[in-house]
């Protein structure tokens, strides 16, 4: 087991290198570079060329990748934004925090709703309730997030126009008078702004989680020890909830790492439509401006998070599932 963990951790290094290299490669094969946008400058026609020289964009891209990697490894330096000229870290850090404050509650809420649905569906397999819940959880999945967000926005507008007060805000993370509020009010204000995006993100990720939960429950309930427990005369409920549920939930918790990409992606368009100042809006504007270092920084940090999440998941899975060979 110890060897497995060490090997798994060591494996992260080539994976990380390969992932960042892939990402860099993909960015680089896009035609043009950051300086292209300045090529049409009335006052300063040489601007594009000058910027290319200053930023070192005229060097071959593998070399720039190596420089970037060296800075990252030796100084934890993610580079300088070409647009703002400032440190990338200061640019992405608040975005990450903001996205985190959307994703964490969304993850918790998803699990709180999806696990009961999954368990119910597994225990009452093929009952009417199972079907209703399955379809319900799929509804959130089947409506594109950005459209769902638009509907929520339209509802917020409609409610205000007919009642004269806001039930939910029209997007954003804080009210415009946020800085004048007391700490207590600030917390409430944040919570109030969180409701709508949280619901949209959660609704869209319910189906995946509840489906895995259902599968796991079915899986566990088919195991020999459950059958043994049943044979021993333990009641159905005890078997289901004490033995099967516990084991299935462990697996579910262990898959959080694997579910994160879906959640992050799911929150992306919601951040756009609901003005949540998370990572996706910054990522999109950076990728269109070909601000390589910001794009790379976001990809790198997210990749690190996901890799660590996956690592933990794998370890947890390995612990609970003896069939996995080290």
């Amino acid at each position, binding site marked *: 087991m110890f060897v497995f963990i060490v090997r798994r951790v060591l*494996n992260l290094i*080539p*994976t*990380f290198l*390969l*992932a960042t290299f*892939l*990402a860099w490669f*993909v*960015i680089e*094969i*896009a*035609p043009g570079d950051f300086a292209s946008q300045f090529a049409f400058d009335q006052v300063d026609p040489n601007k594009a060329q000058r910027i290319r020289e200053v930023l070192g964009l005229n060097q071959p891209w593998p070399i720039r990748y190596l420089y970037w990697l060296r800075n990252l490894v030796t100084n934890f330096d993610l580079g300088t934004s070409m647009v703002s000229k400032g440190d990338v870290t200061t640019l992405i850090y608040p975005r990450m925090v903001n996205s985190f404050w959307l994703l964490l509650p969304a993850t918790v809420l998803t699990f709180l709703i999806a696990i009961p649905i999954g368990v119910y569906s597994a225990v009452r*397999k*093929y009952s009417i309730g199972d*079907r209703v819940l*399955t*379809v319900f959880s*799929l509804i959130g*999945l*089947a*409506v*594109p*997030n*950005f*459209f769902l967000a*638009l*509907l929520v926005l*339209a509802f917020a*507008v409609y409610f205000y126009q007919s009642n004269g007060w806001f039930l939910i805000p029209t997007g954003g993370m804080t009210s415009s008078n946020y800085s004048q509020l007391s700490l207590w009010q600030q917390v409430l204000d944040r919570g109030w702004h969180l409701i709508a995006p949280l619901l949209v993100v959660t609704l869209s*990720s319910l*189906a995946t989680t509840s*489906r*895995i939960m259902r*599968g*796991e429950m*079915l*899986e566990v309930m*088919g195991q020999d020890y459950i059958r043994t427990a049943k044979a021993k005369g333990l009641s159905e409920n005890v078997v289901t909830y004490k033995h099967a549920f516990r084991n299935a939930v462990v*697996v579910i918790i262990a898959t959080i790492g*694997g579910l994160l*990409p*879906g959640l992050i*992606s*799911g929150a*992306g*368009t919601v951040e*756009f439509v609901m003005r949540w100042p998370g990572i*996706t809006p910054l*990522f999109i504007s950076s*990728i269109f401006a070909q601000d390589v270092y910001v*794009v790379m920084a*976001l*990809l790198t940090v997210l*990749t690190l998070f*996901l*890799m660590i999440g*996956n690592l933990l998941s794998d370890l947890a899975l390995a612990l609970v*599932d003896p*069939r996995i060979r080290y």
Partner: protein
Amino acid sequence: MATQTPQTQTGAAPSRRARAARAERQGASLSTIAWKQFRQHPLARGALLILGILYTAAAFADFLAPYPERYINTNNTFQPPTQVHFRDEDGRWSRPYIYPMKKSLDLQTFQTVWEVDTSQKYYLKFFVRREGIRDRYVPFPVSLIPLKLRQTWDIRPTATLHLFGVDDPTDRVKVHLWGTDDLGGDVFGKVLFGARISLTIGILASLVAIAIGMLMGGLAGFYGGWLDELILRLVEAIDAIPSLFLLLTLSAVFYPLGLPSSVVFPLIVVVLSLIGWGGVARTIRAQVLSLKERDFAVAAKAAGASNWRIIRAHLLPQTLSYVIVVMSLAIPGFILTEAVLSFFGLGIQPPATSWGLMLNTAQSFVGVSGLGDRWWIFIPGIFIFVSVLTWNLLGDGLRDAFDPRSRR
């Protein structure tokens, strides 16, 4: 983006080995049992029926749509759905007919007022022939042949039959069952034409993803060693990059080239499959690893069968049920992803059309301000919804069908 790529299935992966093994022991062929099982799944059957209708409609879009894909009419933008009357003024049944509509914009309120001109009835005709150069089309099975080949083989659009049209010799009165969009295009027709791209993009992308995934996973699992390591690392690397961001980065590569839609479509398929193959490869590898230890593979090897033969004849068929399930669950994810790409302006480009593109147009042109008044241009959203929902239900049904433990 609610991408639901194949890797979401990995959580339940280990069980399939056991399932497949059990199915093997039962004498009857897996597919027979599965089909029997599937037929008892009402939601999945319903889903299969709806999908069948959708795909048929997409295939015969040229015939079903009253106007060609690129039809526009800038004087008729955002026309509400034409009301088809079945009873005449006296309340008697009549052949279906419509009244023409005329637009006027109230510059005080900015309400677009559509007046129905009831002075003359225009009857609907069925099985009409429209001979215009753009009304002609290549009928269904032949239209699958790529345009380039068709041109080389000199296959010209000749079919002129359309399901319905307006009985108007001047051709001025148009019937728009679901209204018109921002360019005056027929939403009903465009939904049918858009279905071609939206519905096939998922199938093609998951086919390519599964093909890559099976190949890579099979190789990794079977040969092991450095190849296994390399492929695993690659899968991990791709998995480690958040899919939405990888997808957007990849699309942003091709996007600036200003490619025609005939090239953009396959490119999107490739991009989607590039981010989707990892999960398949991983599961296939695990299955191959477990299968190749089992008696029949060892026996085959002992009997001198070549590696390729073992992979082909013994290992891959074992994973077929898994592939079918993964595919049916991956397709809806790809359909949604196509819509997300369109949301960011990186998807199919006009004048070609897809549901994602239509929904994005609706969202950016009409959006929150016209949700109530111009609801019909959001109809493609319903189709995305229905197709994603039904594919998922179908996938659920298939999975249960291939799972021996859920049999009744």
